[in-house]
C-alpha cells in the first residue's frame, strides 16, 4: 500500500529521499518501515549533510585508541588506563521541556560512555540561552540547570565544569551540550559491533513506553510557532534507574560475558539494533512480542521508535546468559532475549508471528543519503581603526560593566546546584581553567575543559574554529596538563541554506587546521543542525571538549595568585585586538570586525614553554588570557584569595583599552617569585617567546597605574550580583 505524501513529509523525508528508499528496497515501504527509514536517515543519525566535511577532521595521534565511529572516543593515559569521552547535544528537547531535555541529555551521554566499559568520573556541560530580557530565558535557565543537577547528582557523578552563555541568537533555540568522561582499563573496552551468528540479542534496562517517539526526527527539524505542541516527543529520564543500569553493566563487564553492547539513545531500538548488526556485517531478527513494555497495546511502530531512556542492547556469550540474568535481577532491571543475529544482512521484525518489517541493513546505514550541500564562504570582515570615541570610555566603569554582564558574572548560582565532589576525586572543579579529576587510586589526573566562541565563529567561521580548539588547548596547559584529544559538538542552523552550510564547512576547516597543528585530534562528537525558528538561525556554535593528562598531580597548578610580592608576567604579545571582544560587545555595543587572529605557531610555542615552566616548578599560578582580555584574567586570578595586583601598562603603541581588554590569542599570565625570575626569563628568551612584566601582586586591592585603585571585594560583589538578582 502506498503511503500518502503527507505521511512521508511528516516523517521528515523529502520526495527524492522517498524515491531512493523505493529503489533501494525494490518496493514501497510500509508505515513501520517508513518510520525506521525516517529515524535512520534523519540528520541526527545519518550525518548526511556533515559526513563529507567531518572526514577532513584529524582523528588520530599516538594516544588515540578509538576515534569517531563508536559510542564514544577512547584515549590512552598510561598504566593500562583509558579515558572514554564524548559530548552530545540535546537542544531541541531542552527548549520544549528544559528539565527533562537537559536531564535526558546527561543520561544519554553517560550511557554512551559506560556502554564502552568506563565508569563515568565527570560530567561537564555547555549551555546557551537567549538574551536575559527574552521572556523565555529565565524559565529555560532554571529548568536546564535543575535538570542537569537533578540527573547528575542522583546518579552520583560529579559535574565539574561548564559554561553558561547568553546571546540573543539563542532566543528561540537554546543549546544544551552535555559531556561525559569515564575511566576504563585499556584491555577492557567494549564495542558495539555484533559478532557471531545466531547469538541472542538481549534487551536490558527500563521498560519501553511511548515517550520520545520521533525525537530524532524532531532534532532534525526546525521549530515554528507550534513548538509547544511537540511536548509529547520529549523523553523522560530516571537517573535512579540509570544508576542501577550503570552498576549492573559494570558488574557484567568484569568478565568476558559481553560480545557487544550498545545503548538505546536517539531512535531507540531502531538505531541500536541496526548499528550493531551493520557494524558486524550481520543481519538481525527481532521478536517484538519480547520487548518489555510499560504501556498496554504498544504497536511495533511505537516499540521501534520509542526513546524511553535507560535501556541497552547486548549480545552475550551464550554460556554467560544465566549469570547475566541474575545480575540484572539483582539490580531490578528487565532482561529479555528479544532476537538473534543472522546472516541475512537484513533487519527482520516479527510481531504476533507475522513479519512486519524486512529491510536490508545497508539501505539504512551505508546507503543512506550523503549530501554535498552548496555553501557560501564567509570573508574576513575588515578591521576598523580604533576611534577616539572608544578612548572616551572610562576603564573602571567599563570593567564593572563587563563584570556585571550575564556572560561574565560569577556562576556560583549554577555550579552550587551540581554535586562537584561525589566520588572523592575532584581536584579542581568549576571556576578553574580546566576541571581536574584524579584517577582513582593513583596520583595522576585528567584535565577536562569545555569551550565555545559564538561571536568569533559568526564573525569569521574559520578563525572561530581555530580559536576554540586553541583555547581548549590553552586551558589544559594552564592546569599543568598535556592535551591529548577533543570531542566536538557542532551546533548550527539549517544546512540546506548556503550561508549556514558555509559556516559549518568553514568552522570544521578551522577546527581541523588547529587540531592538526596542535596534535589534538577529534575522537568523538556529534552534529546538531536545524537550530532555527521561523527562519532565524543560531550563530554558529561549535563546542569543544578537551581532555589532557597530568601525570603527577604534584605538578598540577591553579590560577589564583598565591603570594604577595610576586612578579606578574604576561606571556605572548598583546596587539590590542578589540573587535568581537567583551569590551566592544558589552560596553561599546559594537559588533563589527573580525575575531582576533589565531597564529598556530605562537599558540604551540607559547604553550610548550608554559608547560616547561610549570614542569620545572618555576611558577605559582597560571591562567590563560581569553575573552575579556588581560584585566578580566587578572581579576580571575585575584578572586579566590585575598591577593590583589599593582600593575602598570607597558610602554607600547596601543591605547590602554586595547591593552587591558584586547583579546589577542596565545597568551598566558603567570605568577613567579623573585628567585625564579631569571630562570624563567631565560627559558622564554631561548624559545623566542615574547613576554612582559606588568607588575606585582599585593594585598587585597586591584591597582592599575593611572587608571584606578579598588578593593577586590567591591569588584567581587559586582561580579556576583547578576545571577543572584536574576534567578
Amino acid at each position, binding site marked *: 500500500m502506498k503511503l500518502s505524501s503527507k505521511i512521508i513529509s511528516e516523517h521528515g523525508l523529502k520526495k527524492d529521499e522517498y524515491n531512493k528508499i523505493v529503489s533501494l528496497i525494490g518496493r514501497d515501504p510500509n508505515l513501520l518501515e517508513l518510520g525506521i527509514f525516517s529515524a535512520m536517515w534523519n540528520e541526527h543519525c545519518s550525518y548526511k549533510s556533515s559526513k563529507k566535511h567531518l572526514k577532513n577532521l584529524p582523528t588520530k595521534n599516538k594516544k588515540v585508541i578509538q576515534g569517531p565511529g563508536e559510542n564514544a572516543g577512547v584515549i590512552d593515559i598510561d598504566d593500562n588506563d583509558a579515558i572514554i569521552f564524548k559530548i552530545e547535544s540535546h537542544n531541541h528537547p531542552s527548549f520544549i521541556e528544559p528539565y527533562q531535555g537537559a536531564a535526558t541529555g546527561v543520561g544519554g551521554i553517560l550511557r554512551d560512555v559506560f556502554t564502552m566499559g568506563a565508569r563515568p568520573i565527570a560530567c561537564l556541560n555547555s549551555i546557551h540561552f537567549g538574551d536575559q530580557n527574552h521572556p523565555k530565558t529565565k524559565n529555560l535557565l532554571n529548568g536546564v540547570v535543575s535538570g542537569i543537577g537533578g540527573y547528575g547528582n542522583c546518579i552520583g557523578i560529579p559535574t565539574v565544569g561548564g559554561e553558561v552563555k547568553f546571546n540573543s541568537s539563542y532566543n528561540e533555540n537554546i543549546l544544551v551540550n552535555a559531556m561525559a568522561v569515564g575511566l576504563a582499563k585499556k584491555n577492557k573496552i567494549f564495542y558495539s559491533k555484533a559478532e557471531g551468528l545466531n547469538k541472542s540479542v538481549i534487551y536490558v534496562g527500563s521498560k519501553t513506553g511511548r515517550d520520545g517517539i520521533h525525537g530524532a526526527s524532531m532534532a532534525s527539524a526546525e521549530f515554528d510557532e507550534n513548538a509547544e505542541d511537540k511536548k509529547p516527543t520529549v523523553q523522560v529520564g530516571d537517573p*535512579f534507574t540509570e544508576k542501577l543500569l550503570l552498576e549492573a553493566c559494570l558488574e557484567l563487564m568484569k568478565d568476558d560475558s559481553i560480545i557487544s553492547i550498545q545503548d538505546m539513545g536517539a531512535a531507540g531500538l531502531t538505531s541500536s539494533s541496526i548499528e550493531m548488526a551493520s557494524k558486524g556485517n550481520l543481519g538481525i531478527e527481532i521478536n517484538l512480542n519480547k520487548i518489555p513494555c510499560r504501556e498496554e497495546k504498544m504497536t511495533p511502530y511505537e516499540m521501534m521508535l520509542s526513546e524511553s531512556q535507560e535501556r541497552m542492547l547486548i549480545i552475550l556469550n551464550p554460556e554467560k546468559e544465566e549469570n547475566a540474568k541474575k545480575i540484572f535481577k539483582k539490580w531490578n532491571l528487565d532482561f529479555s532475549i528479544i532476537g538473534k543475529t543472522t546472516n541475512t544482512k537484513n533487519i527482520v521484525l516479527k510481531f504476533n508471528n507475522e513479519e512486519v518489517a524486512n529491510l536490508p541493513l545497508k539501505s539504512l546505514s551505508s546507503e543512506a543519503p550523503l549530501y554535498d550541500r552548496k555553501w557560501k564562504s564567509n570573508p574576513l570582515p575588515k578591521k576598523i581603526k580604533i576611534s577616539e570615541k572608544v578612548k572616551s570610555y572610562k576603564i573602571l566603569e567599563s570593567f564593572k560593566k563587563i563584570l556585571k554582564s550575564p556572560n561574565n558574572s560569577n556562576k556560583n548560582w549554577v555550579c552550587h546546584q551540581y554535586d*562537584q565532589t561525589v566520588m572523592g576525586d575532584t581536584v579542581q572543579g568549576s571556576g578553574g581553567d580546566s576541571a581536574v579529576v584524579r584517577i582513582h587510586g593513583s596520583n595522576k589526573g585528567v584535565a577536562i575543559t569545555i569551550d565555545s566562541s559564538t561571536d568569533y565563529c559568526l564573525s569569521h567561521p574559520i578563525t572561530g574554529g581555530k580559536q576554540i580548539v586553541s583555547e581548549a588547548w590553552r586551558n589544559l596547559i594552564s592546569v599543568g596538563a598535556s592535551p591529548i584529544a577533543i570531542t566536538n559538538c557542532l551546533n548550527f542552523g539549517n544546512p540546506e541554506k548556503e550561508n549556514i552550510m558555509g559556516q559549518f564547512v568553514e568552522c570544521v576547516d578551522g577546527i581541523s587546521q588547529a587540531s592538526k597543528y596542535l596534535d589534538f585530534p577529534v575522537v568523538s562528537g556529534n552534529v546538531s543542525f536545524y537550530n532555527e525558528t521561523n527562519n532565524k538561525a543560531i550563530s554558529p556554535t561549535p563546542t569543544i571538549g578537551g581532555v589532557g593528562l597530568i601525570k603527577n598531580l604534584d605538578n598540577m597548578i591553579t590560577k589564583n595568585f598565591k603570594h604577595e610580592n610576586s612578579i606578574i608576567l604576561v606571556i605572548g604579545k598583546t596587539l590590542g585586538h578589540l573587535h568581537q571582544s567583551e569590551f566592544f560587545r558589552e560596553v561599546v555595543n559594537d559588533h563589527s570586525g573580525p575575531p582576533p587572529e589565531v597564529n598556530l605557531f605562537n599558540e604551540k610555542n607559547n604553550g610548550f614553554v608554559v608547560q616547561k615552566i610549570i614542569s620545572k616548578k618555576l611558577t605559582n599560578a597560571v591562567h590563560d588570557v581569553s575573552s575579556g582580555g588581560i584585566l578580566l584574567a587578572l581579576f580571575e586570578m585575584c578572586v579566590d584569595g585575598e591577593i590583589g595586583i599593582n600593575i602598570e601598562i607597558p610602554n607600547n603603541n596601543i591605547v590602554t583599552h586595547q591593552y587591558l581588554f584586547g583579546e589577542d590569542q596565545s597568551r598566558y599570565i603567570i605568577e613567579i617569585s623573585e628567585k625564579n625570575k631569571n630562570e624563567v626569563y631565560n627559558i622564554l628568551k631561548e624559545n623566542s617567546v615574547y613576554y612582559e612584566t606588568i607588575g606585582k601582586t599585593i594585598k587585597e586591592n586591584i591597582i592599575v597605574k593611572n587608571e584606578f585603585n579598588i578593593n577586590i571585594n567591591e569588584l567581587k560583589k559586582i561580579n556576583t550580583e547578576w545571577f543572584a538578582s536574576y534567578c
Partner: protein
Amino acid sequence: MKSSVIVFPGSNCDRDIAVALDKFNIKNQMVWHDETDLPKSDLVVLPGGFSFGDYLRTGCIASKSKIIKSVIDHASKGGLLLGICNGFQILIETSLLPGALLRNKKLKFISKNVYLKVTNSNNIFCLGYKKKDIIKFPIAHNEGNYFAKNDIIKNLEDKNLIAFKYCDNKGVINIHSNPNGSSNNIAGILNKNKNVLGLMPHPERAIDPLLSSIDGSIMFKSLIQ
C-alpha cells in the same frame, strides 16, 4: 575496629566512605541491603546518595530494607551507627533519630563547603574536635532542612544531643550561615545514648588535603581511638 557499610540501590557515596574507612585502617565490609545479617561490626555506616531514587520520601524505602532490622539491633546493643546525608535521612525514617529532613528552604540542591560548629564533642565520633570546634565540610543535598516540633528541638538542645550546627568561619551561628533553613542551624544530631550520629555534611569528603579540608580525618581518628 570493624565496620560495615550498607549499600542500597542508588547509594552513591558508598565507595567514598569505604575509601575513608580504609585510609584509617578500619576493616570494612560492604553489605547489600537485601541481606538479613550484619557481619560482626563495631561501626555501621549508612552512606550518602539517592537510595531507591528518593522515591516516596528520601530514605523511606531504604528504611524498610531487609538489613535494617539488624542495623537497629546493632544500635540498640550500643554499636556505633553513622548516617551521612541520605544515611541521616534513613536514620530519621527508622525513627532511630527524631524529626524530619525537608526540602532545602530555597528549593535548590546545594553543593558547597560550609563551616560547622561542633556543639557536642563528648561522644565517640567527635572526641577529636575538642581541640578544634570550627570545621569545614562539604554539603551536597536537596533535603537537608532539619525540622522537628518545638518540644523535640528543646529536648535536643537541653540534653546536648546536637553534634553539629551550621556557622560562619568565625563560629557565628545565625540565619546567614544557615545554607538550607534547618531549625536552629542543626546539621547533625545524636541519639540519647550518643552511639548513633546522623549528619548532612560529608566527613568522608574532607580527608584529603589535595581536594579539600581534612577536618573529616579528625572524626575517623576519633573512632579508632
